[in-house]
């Protein structure tokens, strides 16, 4: 456990001193805080505009932070040979992988929580007179879990590929994960349909984390729409990291 903790803490410390990450976070906070400036462009639907834009900005900047961290996660350690010294200590490859994932995820989730807090403050300040809609809090709450799942995919990709490929792989998985409900119903040749079905089955359903849709429709956000994605994310994280470990354990440096 101490090795995992040490890896995670070092990753957090390294990440929190990255100037580029500070800039992204400051920019994200400013963008979220400025959402109200543009609400005038959606007259009569200000609440929907603020919720949709605010939550998607958290998601977008969270992904950006995740990619910046993830690209450096393991490929950089291998490229710079830091991993040689780390694995010469009594640290298993599994501990290394889990530590790196936890450290990077903690930073991304932490950033998402800061952005979420700013968003909720903006929303509450704007709509406190009409009462606070707790469903907005629920929709915001699942975003960090989506980002954690995204970080697991980034970690998995970084066990076998270069920085650029990690970015391409993770972004592709995220995009496909948001549309994979459609993949299953697309028609084409038997081969194409088969491939789309397989892709749809092996890529996590990121659309589960998008609770802005019921909010936009004016529907209440049921509690199960919150806990199901959370459990789903944690389950997928375990599966993806297990596969990552299998790949990483056989890798030569």
């Amino acid at each position, binding site marked *: 456990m101490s090795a995992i903790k040490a890896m995670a803490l070092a990753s957090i410390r390294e990440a929190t001193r990255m100037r580029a990450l500070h800039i992204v976070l400051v920019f994200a906070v400013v963008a979220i805080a400025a959402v109200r400036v543009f609400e005038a462009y959606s007259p009569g639907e200000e609440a929907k505009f603020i919720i949709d834009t605010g939550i998607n900005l958290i998601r977008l900047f969270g992904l950006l932070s995740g990619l910046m961290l993830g690209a450096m996660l393991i490929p950089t350690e291998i490229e710079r040979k830091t991993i040689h*010294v780390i694995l*010469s200590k009594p640290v298993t490859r599994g501990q290394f992988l889990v530590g790196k994932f936890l450290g990077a995820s903690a930073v991304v989730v932490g950033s998402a929580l800061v952005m979420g807090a700013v968003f909720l403050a903006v929303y509450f300040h704007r709509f406190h007179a009409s009462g606070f809609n707790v469903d907005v809090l629920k929709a915001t709450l699942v975003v960090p879990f989506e980002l954690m799942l995204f970080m697991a995919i980034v970690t998995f990709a970084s066990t076998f590929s270069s920085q650029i490929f990690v970015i391409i792989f993770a972004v592709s998985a995220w995009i496909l994960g948001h549309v994979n409900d459609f993949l299953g119903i697309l028609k084409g040749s038997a081969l194409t349909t088969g491939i789309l079905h397989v892709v749809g089955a092996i890529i996590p359903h990121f659309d589960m984390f998008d609770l802005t849709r019921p909010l936009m429709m004016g529907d209440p956000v049921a509690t199960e729409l919150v806990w199901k994605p959370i459990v789903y994310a944690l389950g997928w994280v375990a599966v993806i990291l297990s596969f990552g470990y299998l790949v990483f354990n056989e890798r030569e440096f």
Partner: protein
Amino acid sequence: MSTASAAPQPVVTCVGLTKTYRLALGHELTALSGLNLEVMPREIFGIVGPNGSGKTTTLKLLLGLIFPTAGYCTVLGHHPRSPQGKESIGFMPEGPFFYQHLNGQEVIEFFGQLCGMPKALLRERTETLLSLVGMSARRRVVMSQCSKGMVQRIGLAAAMVNDPSLIMMDEPTSGLDPIGTREIKDLILELREQGKTVLLCSHLLEQVQEICDRVAILHRGELLRVGRVEDILAPVDDTEVVVGGASAEFLAQCKEMGIRIDTAKRDPTLVVPPSVPLFDLIQAIQKDGARLVAVNRFRETLETVFLRSVAAVGQTDSVRGEHD
């Protein structure tokens, strides 16, 4: 009842250790071929060889970073990937690279935490190591602002944080100035005094000769020689005669007499075998009008042994090539 004490067990054992890399288009590269080696406790063991000879591959195999194609190795009696074995290992790579935003003290503490060291012990150990590698005053400098020599010193401290009994070093003096190099050499000798085993890889033969107890010479992945430095540099009865202003005719005459001539230095050096009477040679020098600069007992260096071993392999290769 037997009174004989048990023979010391080797710290590192390599048996038929082979590593072949698969390259593109079905090609293969054998980086290490059938290495048999034992490193005994409390010795400084050097692996020498030119670039691409298999030195770093050997270290990577011993650390479990890569896997052998054939053969096996054990480190402190454990499989190279066993965390138990690694509890007593320290490794310093060539030109180590640490997290750029951490300072020297944090880097050492990080590696101590990886080893599960208690806080108080780690703090004490970090202080000792920072002082040992001369980085106490510069402990707060972040890695991105450290010179190559400073990083090397932190790398050495990080390798020793868990007080290992076996320390592996890849080109330990790389990037260090002469003072830093001397300090590292002294430190390695001190480690042996403390009862530790040091396994180092280097292409700086003079340094290896100076500090190692035993050496292995690798060339193109094959072990050419292994043994105690003094055995490899066995005393020979040749005499070294340095002459100034010798004519080409005289030097040609010397060659005919079986005298080796080293022209690398300003004045030619004649390596005279015992079969050539020294008195006759000195008379011949006077007759040639050359100047006798010095007469010494010939001392072989690791460099000459290494070059001779490599040259012998080269000749064998070319003979093999002709037969193939």
